[in-house]
């Protein structure tokens, strides 16, 4: 066991528990906080994958902006815990978990198990660096990049339209 493995195990455990927390927490604020932790740990998982730029972007975009928005909305609307509660005896609970288990076992047997021996190549200098991402973003992926910017613009307009007070 080296440091890297320990780090991975810790991070993935944190991520998984935080993920469970998102689903199981009664109060939306706690769900949101769990999600923050989840995303933070995913960001650090990115770091372990040597995707520094993506990790920091993950923190900036998800943790710094999106989750703050979530918290803001939850607080602004003062959403309490599910008044009706999460029905433990909800008819959908059991089938949903069943489906999840089925899918997990199916994929892990069919996909994850064969991939277990996958080699871990030594990354080049500059893998995941801002230069590499920038270069491919502005050369090969410039069209999707522009489309994404338009999408963001549309998103802004849509959000303003949806959220503004009716006159």
């Amino acid at each position, binding site marked *: 066991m080296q440091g890297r493995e320990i780090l991975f195990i810790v991070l993935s455990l944190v991520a998984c528990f935080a993920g469970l927390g998102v689903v199981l927490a009664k109060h939306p604020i706690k769900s949101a906080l769990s999600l923050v932790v989840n995303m933070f740990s995913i960001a650090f998982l990115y770091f372990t994958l040597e995707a520094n730029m993506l990790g920091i972007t993950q923190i900036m975009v998800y943790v710094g902006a999106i989750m703050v928005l979530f918290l803001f909305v939850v607080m602004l609307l003062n959403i309490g815990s599910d008044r009706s509660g999460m029905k433990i005896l909800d008819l*959908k609970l059991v089938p949903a978990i069943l489906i999840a288990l*089925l899918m997990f076992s199916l994929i892990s047997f069919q996909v994850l198990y064969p991939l277990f021996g996958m080699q871990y190549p030594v990354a080049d200098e500059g893998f995941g660096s801002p230069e590499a991402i920038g270069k491919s973003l502005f050369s090969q992926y410039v069209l999707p990049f522009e489309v994404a910017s338009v999408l963001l613009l549309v998103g802004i307009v849509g959000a303003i339209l949806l959220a503004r007070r009716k006159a």
Partner: protein
Amino acid sequence: MISLENYNWLHSVIILMVLMPFLGALFQALYGKLTECLLGVKSGRWLLGSLAFTFVGTSFGLALLVVKDIFLKHPADVCCFRFTYFDWINLEVLRVPVEMFLDPLSITMVLLITGVGSLIHLYSTAYMSDDAEYSRFFTYLNMFIGFMLILVLSNNLLLLFVGWEGVGLCSYLLIGFWYKNLENAKAANKAFIVNRIGDLGLLLGIFSIAFLLHSTYGINSAGNVITPQILDPRWLSYDIIFGLLPSILTSYPDYATAIALLLFVGAMGKSAQFPLYVWLPDAMAGPTPVSALIHAATMVTSGIFLLNRMHMVFEFSPYASAIVSVVGAITAVWAALIAFGQTDIKKVLAYSTVSQLGYMFMACGVGAYWVGMFHVLTHAFFKALLFLGSGAVIYAMAHEQDMRRYGNLWRYLPVTGICMMIGTFAIAGIPLLSGFWSKEAILHAAFESSYPANLLGVDVATLVGWTGVFVAILTSAYMFRMHLLTFGIPFVNGAERWRLIPAHDHHHHHSESEGAVESEKYDFSDDTFNFYRRELCSHGCHHSDEHHALDKNHEPKEVPYSMQVVLVILAILSIFGGFFLHQHHFLEHFLSSSSAVSWVKPEILVDSYHDNHGVLESLLYISILAVTIGMSYALIVYSRGLPEKEGYNEEKWSRFRLFAKDGFMFDSSLSRIFGRGGYKLSEGFWYVFDNFLIDGIVNMFGKLSSICGEMTRFFQNGNIRFYIFMMSLAILVIIFYILKGGLN
């Protein structure tokens, strides 16, 4: 061919010539109202009018430049130029460039269009000066000139079609210029729709030429080039067509007849030939300068131009040529007879135009294409003169168009009167005036035609010739009738006839009559004031303050100088134009040489069997006699003013004249057959097809989908979580399927 290297400037001059009017139109359309706002209405309109005139005048100047430097320096038969600008359509097998073709025929038309066009622009600046939508008028007018230039200058059939449709559009817009009056809008629609029939013919003609070229020499369905001859994909351009057609048509003479007739249908629509002439008289609803420019001098002659351009096809088909001349003859007689029943001065001129167009087609039909163009030119001079003169009269007479209200206008409008008299003399064929020369040429061509034009056992050419003589009689008769009714000094029943209209207080009456018009807007059953009301409708709404109705205190005044100048110029052209063009057979040599490719005429055409030597020798006397007969009839009947038989009370009219007034019921029976018949037919179709077949199918699908909806609505329960649940179930199944190797 002259080498083009010394004439590089031609390339840009030609496109500039075409673009100038469009630029003018653009300016008028974009900045017309702005100019009026900025400079005030009066000076703004002065600027707009002069600009409109300048743009067209520049084109005319460029055309003159081309004539001076090219056509006067070189023999006509080498003056053929092709200018390619850019590709419009570029496919593997078809390339349609925007290209211009300059030859004697097209430069003749260009001179005519821009020359007469700029004169009429000049005239219009005064005529339209108090119309509310000055710049719109000039937008259309400039655009018309531009499209007309495209039509005559284009080097391929598609571009010709663009010009063809463009002038049709402008004609439509200008007929319906005063669109607030429903009658005008209807007239515009009529012109447009009737022209569509002709355009369909033209399109079919173009298609069949393309088909013929393509199927005979082109590329077969497998994509293989059958003959190496057609490697140039510009096979809609004239130079290619004319190079290939003769050999094809020699082997397929029936195609020649079919194509020629289809093209002729196109020409019939645009040039108002017999069944399709009905739109032209109604087109007089537009402003008078428009009638002069579009519906007398230029656009309606584009049919003749087409025949001249494509004359190769016609020369391969004597039958089609015979049909052309017969249709022309029928039109000439028919319209001339109708003209006798008309009391509206512009309608008389409209029918006269139709009749003269028939004349031109007669000439083309007997094989004398250059004569057709000759008559186009002279007719443009004197008919534009007559229309503009009538416009001047209408202008002076408070927009009254009924000749029965005129009389004795010599006293008030001497310049207009003299000019119109020259025009009348010219159209009637008084010797030495321009109409005389062209009419003589037509008759001459008919009698000495070399065509074996034997249709159903009748010697068509000779028949057409005699018809021409008859039409000459009729023409001089109705033209002098018009002139005498308008200007003639009545010998017997005294005064000017508008003095009989009771006087009325302008403003009071005006509001009253406007109210009346408002209440019974489209009911013109009381037809004494038919035209009066119509004019009121069309003009009254625009400038009710300035124009008053005609009444007995009206004093006609001579029109502004800018209009008089135009009249005088055109009068001079009407006097000397024909002689000038005819001397030393100038025009004949000039036009006959115009073709992109010279080809050997088919042998069938050389054989001539009819013998009209006697007639030809005495033709001059015959035609002079014809003019004299017509003129003396008119003098006898109309020199004493308006005869009782043609007065305001139409019950006293003769049956023939009443019949002619209605256009021999042709128009109304057309609408009855096609309008009502079509309605009944479609009603039947609606009952059978729509009710049972289509509705049944549609209802079946509706019922089917509603049944399906009933079946599937269980799943549509609005519960998002349920949807997601089902979705994940489906994903599971899909993953299972994929992992099981289902995609292999």
